[in-house]
C-alpha cells in the first residue's frame, strides 16, 4: 500500500481563544443565575432551549458518525475527530437538561395538579405526563445516549494505537444500536421536553421535525469546526475541497429536508384546519411572531438553499462557513419558535434573559470541544478507511 500519510497534526487551542470563551461562558452563567432568581418564568424556557441546543449538537454528531460507520463511508474519516469531539461534549447538554428538571413547575402546565384536575385532556394524559415519570424518562434518555456516544468515540480512539480492524466492526455494531435507540427515544424525548410545553397540542411528525433541525445544525457545527481547523493550519493537509463539497451537499440536503418536514407539518395543520391543532400555528403567526416564522424559514432553508445550489459555493471555505453560522443562528430561531410562544404569547422578546443561557452553553461547548480535540490525534490514524479520505498525491 502506498498511502501517503501527512505529518500528524496536533491541536492546541489558542490561549486567547480559550480565555475569551471562558469570559463569555462566565458572563452567560451569571446572567442565567440571576435570571433564575429575578425572573424564573422568563429564564427557564431559555435554559431549556440552550440545553436542548447543545445536547442536540452532540447527538447529531453521534448520528453523523454512526451513519458513516453503517454505510461503510470512507470519505469522511479524515475529519471524524471533529464530530467525535462534538459528541464528547454531550455531558454538557445532559447536565443542563438535568438542571432543567428543577424548572419543571415553571415550564410545564401539566405539572400543576390543580390545573390537571379541572382539565379533561390533561387528566387523560396524566399517566404519561407526570413529574416522577418525566424525571425517570429524562434520566433514562440521557444515560442511554451518553453511554452509547461514549462507546462510539472511545472505540474509535482506541483504534489509533494499533489499527485493529475488529474495532471498526465493533463500532459498526455500536452505531446500529445508537441509531435505533436514538430514533425511538429521541422521538419521545422531543415530545416530552418540547411538545408538552403546550400539552393540549400534538403532532405526530414532531420527532422527525426536531431531528431534521438537530441534524442540520449538527452538520453545520461539524463544518464550522473543520473549516476553523483548516484555517488554523491543522487540517491543511487533510481537509480537501472534496470534503467541503460533500459536507456542503449534506448541509444543502438536510436544509431542504428540514424545509420539507416543516412544510409538511404546516400544510397539514393549515389544510385540515382543526381548531385544537391550528391554534399552534395561529399563535406563531399573530403579530410579530409572524416575523419569527418567516425568518425561521429564511435562515434554515432559503439562504442555505440558494447559496449552496451551485457547485462552487459548496467548495468555497469562507462561504460555507458563513452559511453554517447562519444555520446555527437559524437553529436557535427554530427552537425559540417552538419553545417560547406559550411563555411570551404577545410578541417575541429578545433580551438579556434570552441571550444569557445560549451564550453560556455555546461558549462552554466550544471550550469542551477544543479541549477534547487537543487530547487525541486530530485524524484517526488507525482507521482502515482513512486511505480513501485523505487527498491523493
Amino acid at each position, binding site marked *: 500500500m502506498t498511502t501517503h500519510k501527512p505529518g500528524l497534526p496536533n491541536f492546541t487551542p489558542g490561549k486567547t481563544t480559550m480565555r475569551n470563551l471562558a469570559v463569555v461562558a462566565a458572563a452567560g452563567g451569571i446572567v442565567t443565575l440571576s435570571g433564575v432568581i429575578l425572573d424564573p418564568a422568563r429564564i427557564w424556557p431559555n435554559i431549556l432551549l440552550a440545553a436542548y441546543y447543545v445536547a442536540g449538537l452532540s447527538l447529531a454528531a453521534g448520528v453523523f458518525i454512526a451513519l458513516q460507520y453503517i454505510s461503510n463511508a470512507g470519505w469522511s474519516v479524515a475529519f471524524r475527530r471533529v464530530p467525535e469531539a462534538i459528541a464528547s461534549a454531550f455531558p454538557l447538554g445532559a447536565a443542563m437538561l438535568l438542571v432543567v428538571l428543577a424548572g419543571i413547575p415553571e415550564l410545564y402546565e401539566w405539572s400543576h395538579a390543580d390545573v390537571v384536575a379541572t382539565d379533561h385532556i390533561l387528566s387523560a394524559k396524566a399517566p404519561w405526563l407526570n413529574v416522577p415519570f418525566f424525571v425517570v424518562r429524562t434520566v433514562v434518555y440521557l444515560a442511554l445516549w451518553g453511554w452509547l456516544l461514549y462507546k462510539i468515540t472511545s472505540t474509535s480512539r482506541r483504534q489509533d494505537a494499533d489499527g485493529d480492524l475488529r474495532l471498526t466492526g465493533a463500532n459498526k455494531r455500536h452505531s446500529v444500536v445508537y441509531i435505533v435507540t436514538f430514533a425511538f427515544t429521541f422521538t419521545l424525548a422531543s415530545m416530552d421536553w418540547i411538545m408538552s410545553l403546550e400539552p393540549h397540542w400534538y403532532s405526530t411528525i414532531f420527532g422527525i421535525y426536531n431531528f431534521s433541525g438537530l441534524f442540520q445544525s449538527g452538520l453545520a457545527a461539524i463544518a464550522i469546526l473543520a473549516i476553523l481547523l483548516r484555517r488554523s493550519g491543522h487540517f491543511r493537509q487533510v481537509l480537501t475541497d472534496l470534503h467541503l463539497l460533500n459536507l456542503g451537499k449534506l448541509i444543502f440536503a438536510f436544509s431542504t429536508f428540514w424545509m420539507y418536514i416543516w*412544510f409538511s407539518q404546516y*400544510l397539514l395543520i393549515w389544510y385540515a384546519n382543526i381548531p385544537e391543532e391550528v391554534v399552534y400555528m395561529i399563535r406563531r403567526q399573530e403579530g410579530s411572531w409572524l416575523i419569527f416564522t418567516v425568518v425561521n424559514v429564511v435562515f434554515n432553508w432559503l439562504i442555505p438553499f440558494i447559496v449552496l445550489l*451551485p457547485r462552487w459555493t459548496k467548495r468555497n471555505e469562507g462561504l460555507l462557513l458563513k452559511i453554517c453560522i447562519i444555520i446555527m443562528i437559524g437553529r436557535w430561531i427554530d427552537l425559540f419558535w417552538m419553545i417560547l410562544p406559550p411563555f411570551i404569547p404577545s410578541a417575541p422578546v429578545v433580551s438579556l434573559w434570552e441571550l444569557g443561557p445560549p451564550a453560556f452553553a455555546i461558549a462552554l461547548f466550544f471550550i469542551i470541544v477544543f479541549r477534547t480535540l487537543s487530547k487525541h490525534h486530530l485524524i484517526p490514524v488507525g482507521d482502515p478507511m482513512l486511505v480513501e479520505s485523505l487527498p491523493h498525491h
Partner: protein
Amino acid sequence: MSRRLLSAWFGGERDILAATRATREAGYQILDVYTPYAVHGLDNAAGLRPSRLPWVCFALGLTGAVAKLWYQIWTSATSWALNVGGKPFKSVPAFVPVTFEMMVLFAAVGTVVAFFIVSGLRPGRKPRHVYDRTTNDLFALVLVQHDAGFDIAAVRDLLSRHNLVRLEERIEVPEVKTAPGSFLLKPALGWGLTGALVIVVALTYLLPRTFTEPNSEFLPGMVESVPYDPLSANTNFADGMTLRTPPSGTIARGHMPWDSSRAGTEASLVAAYVSTLSPDQLSDREARAASVFATFCQPCHGPAGKGDGTIPARGYPAPPSLDATNALKLTDGQIFNILTYGRGNMPSLAGRIPVNERWLAVQHVRRIQEIATAAATVATPPAGGTAPLNGKENPR
C-alpha cells in the same frame, strides 16, 4: 474540405488518460476521445471545460415554477374564483406542490432536450464512429493532423508508450450534411402523404351522410337518461306516448285563465287569481294595486278616478269618472274586460299589464269607488272602513 485524422486505440482507462494528457501537452489537436463508459478525469485530460447545462436546468426550473404559480393563482383567484371548502382563493400553501412538480418537469425534460441538441443526438443520427469496439471494450483517441509539422513517427512513438493497441490513419471526407428532418423531403414520403390526403378528402365528399340523424355517440355516458323523456315513445301505454293527458279542469301552476267565456264565473277567476298569491303578496297587494293604477290608469283617470289626469289636461278627451253610477254598476269581470280590450277612446292594456296585475288594477278601481261612495254618504261610512277588496269576501 477533408481532414487527415489519426485514430489510436487503447485497452484501458489508465492508458487512455495518460495518452490523452500526453498528446495534449505535446500540443497536438485532439478531435475527440471515444470511450465505452464515462472515464473520470478524461475531461480534464482532454482539456474540456465543464458543461453549461446546469444553467439551462436552473433557468428552466425557475421558469416552470414561476409560470405554474402564476397560472394557479390566475385560474383559482382571477379567471373563475371558486370558493372550495372555505379555502382562500389565493391558497399559496396549497399551490406549492403543483408548482414544485412543474419546476421539476420543466427542468428535467428541458435539460435532456438541451443535452440532445448540443450533443447532436437525435433519432436516426448516424454515429461518427471510428471503430465499433469503442462502445464495447476499446478507448479511441482521435487526433487531427492539422499542419505539416505533424510527425507521424513522433506521435506513434509517444502513443506506443501507453500500450497502444492499434493505430490507423484515415482521411475524413466531409459528408453531405443532411439537415435534421430531411427525411420529410423524400419523394416517396411526400407522395404517400399527398395520396393519403387526397383519399381522405375524397372519402369525406363521397361517403353518404344523413344529416337528419345524430352522429353516433362513443361511450355516451349520461347523455342517454335511464327514465323516459317526456316526448319519447313508450310502449307501456296504449297511445304509445310517454306524455299523459292531465285530468280535465287541470290548470298549470302559475297559469292565469282570463277569458271569462271559457273559464267559468268571475268569482272563480278571482279565486284563481288570489290562489296564486303568496301570503306576502296578499298583505302587500294594496300597495301593488295602487302602484299599477298609478302607472297605467292615473295618467288619464287621475289619482281619484275623476277623469282629471295629466293627459286630458292637455286636450285628450277626458274619460268618465270612475265613481259615476254606470261605473259603479260594472262587475269586476267587466272592468277586467275593459282593461283587456279597451272601450271608446281607451286602448287595450292587455299587452302592457300582465293578467294578475290587471286584476290588481280592478281592485284599486273598487277601492276608489268605495272611498268616493263613503265621501258621498258621510253619515254612514262603510263597515270596516278601509277594508281591502278581496274577491273572496266581496264577490259582486
